[in-house]
């Protein structure tokens, strides 16, 4: 079976809605709301077809399908995380309290409410069919395909990319929320989460105090949860780290989950070379490659261990994969050699 990531279209609406309804914990950026998802798919398709040369406030959505065209997963890129709104985070900072009189110097950790990430590109809304045996592979492809899209049209994304992973939970509760957000919102986590996922987030600026929080004043459970990932997402954390993402100073405002970041311009650069089809399925080679094609306002990508470059610099690809990518002999392909990042 060959998994293919491709730009989503309105035809994927039912599948997307099913994925959204299936996600647990619910995803801020994938609300199970038919109308909102339909709007997202429409604007995404339009954006794929446009020739924008700067980050726009339009989410770009990919789906992954199997050989039969069945949609197994989805993920999205928001070129500007904040869009017209604000993307709030807590930024971990250290204050230095020093006293000549007492001859001491202490570092005091704080959490500062921050808008900085509003202008960065957010990779979000990753969901897969829960029961699918290839879930890990689907996610890996979605991670790689989004980075390939960024590498293909870097000018459409911000110099900084980030991903926000769900924060630590224990017994179904977020200790960070219990120790921080609840004080300000006096609402259940889910309710605020839902409000934050539907439209304007300006209410956060109204409700949260503008002052930083002193970490020494948080309860132990909340403090321990700062920047700690949800147990079910530790694999995703490792996956992103293998792609070269590193923990940032920022954590999620509501659940304290980590934000991982990477410089757009530090991503491996793709090679552009024409495809050369061959009939036989490829042998399983050494290095894995990501192959992507951009045609007719669509984006397609798949992982291949069999692809090689021939002496003319063409990318040798078997007919099956070529068909999935919608490429023929001499159609240009984007080729990214995959490597574990040593960062």
């Amino acid at each position, binding site marked *: 079976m060959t998994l293919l990531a491709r730009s989503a279209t309105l035809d994927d609406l039912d599948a997307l809605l099913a994925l959204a309804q299936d996600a647990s914990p619910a995803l801020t950026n994938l609300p199970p709301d038919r109308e909102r998802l339909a709007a997202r798919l429409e604007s995404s398709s339009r954006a794929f077809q446009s020739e924008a040369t700067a980050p726009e406030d339009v989410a770009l959505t990919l789906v992954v399908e199997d050989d039969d065209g069945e949609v197994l997963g989805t993920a999205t890129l928001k070129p500007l995380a904040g869009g017209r709104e604000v993307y709030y985070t807590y930024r971990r900072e250290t204050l230095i*309290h*020093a*006293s*000549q*009189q*007492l001859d*001491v110097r*202490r570092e*005091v950790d*704080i959490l500062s409410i921050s808008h900085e990430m509003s202008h960065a590109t957010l990779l979000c809304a990753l969901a897969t069919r829960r029961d699918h045996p290839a879930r890990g592979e689907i996610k890996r492809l979605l991670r790689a395909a989004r980075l390939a899209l960024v590498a293909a049209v870097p000018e459409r994304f911000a110099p900084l990319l980030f991903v926000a992973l769900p924060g630590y939970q224990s017994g179904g509760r977020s200790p960070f929320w219990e120790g921080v957000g609840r*004080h*300000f*919102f*006096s*609402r259940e986590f889910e*309710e*605020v989460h839902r*409000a934050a996922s539907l439209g*304007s987030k300006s*209410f956060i600026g*109204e*409700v*949260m*105090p503008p*002052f*930083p*929080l*002193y970490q*020494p*004043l*948080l309860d132990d459970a909340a403090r321990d949860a700062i920047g700690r990932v949800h147990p079910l997402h530790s694999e995703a954390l490792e996956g992103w780290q293998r792609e070269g993402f590193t923990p940032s100073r920022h954590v999620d405002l509501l659940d304290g989950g980590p934000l991982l970041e990477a410089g757009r311009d530090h991503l491996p650069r793709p090679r552009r070379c024409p495809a050369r089809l061959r009939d036989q399925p490829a042998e399983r080679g050494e290095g894995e490659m990501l192959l992507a094609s951009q045609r007719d306002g669509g984006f397609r990508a798949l992982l291949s261990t069999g692809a090689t470059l021939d002496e003319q610099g063409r990318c040798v690809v078997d007919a099956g994969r070529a068909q999935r990518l919608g490429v023929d002999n001499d159609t240009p392909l984007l080729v990214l050699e995959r490597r574990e990042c040593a960062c």
Partner: protein
Amino acid sequence: MLIRPVETADIDALREIAVETGPGFTSLPDNRDFLADKIDHARQSLAGEAEDALYFFVLEDDQQPGERAERLAGCCAIEARVGLDAPFYHYRIGQLAHSSSRLGLHRTLDTLFLCSDHTGSAEVCSLYLREPWRGAAHRNSRNGTLLSRARWLFMAAFRSRFPERVLAEMRGRFDDDGKSPFWEALGQKFLPIEFQRADHLTGMGEKSFIGEMMPRHPICTSFLPQSARDCIGQVHHQTRPALAMLNRDGLRFEGYIDLFDGGPTVEAYIDDVHSIRHTRSARVRLDDSVERAARPAWLAATASSPTAFRAAWLGRGPEGDDIRLTPEEAQRLQVAEGDSLRLLET
């Protein structure tokens, strides 16, 4: 029993009081040089009108024979204007709105702000009554009331030496082990010293560490544990009578608390203080036939000059514009026929 300004010769007696009061009594550390400076400063304050004047009084048992140190029953003081030399810090409890029409949410959260709002206010402080003059046996002498309210008579007499407002800082709540839950939850997390040392340094006026080490951003009280929140604006059980007396004089808790133990500051406009509003003047008439009443009900104080300030109980009030004194009472207050006295029924 007589209230009079502290004198240079009181130094040893004052040091004994400092030893007795222990480290909890911030403004009277057991440090001879500091106390000697304090007495000097108090003497100069009486003479001049220094902005940062300190008026420091002692309660002398003039019936008691023996050494001066054995006759000194207590002390009390007024700082004319706090915060002029060194910053005068409080936490102020303010309300911050947390409101969102989107969430249908509207509430306010109590928040502690580090501030110096009381800079320039007067402070009544350093009240202490020694053990031998306390308790049931002394109930009728009302020594505590004398120490507390004599200050209002001084302020009424020399009103121009004081600003618009007055405050008093009350010792905060401590648990049975002598620990302050407020300190444990807040100060201790930021200061690398013990409560006693922090309190001591503050008493010595060495407060720069506060601005350097204590949190300077506001703190929502809901982040403090319940035990600490229960201390906010609450007094030590031994301080309740003192608080009650200040409340009766119209001083109120307006949301300012001590940085270290969370104890309340009570405050008022000086002209609103009941004991000041209700003092009146009367002229001394000597009369050795008057009887001493069983219970002292009128406080009398001299009003001629700060250096000659004396206050004591009288068993009777004025008649018209006159107040009759026995020669013994007149001598205690160092007044003569025709002199003016300020009187307060209490």
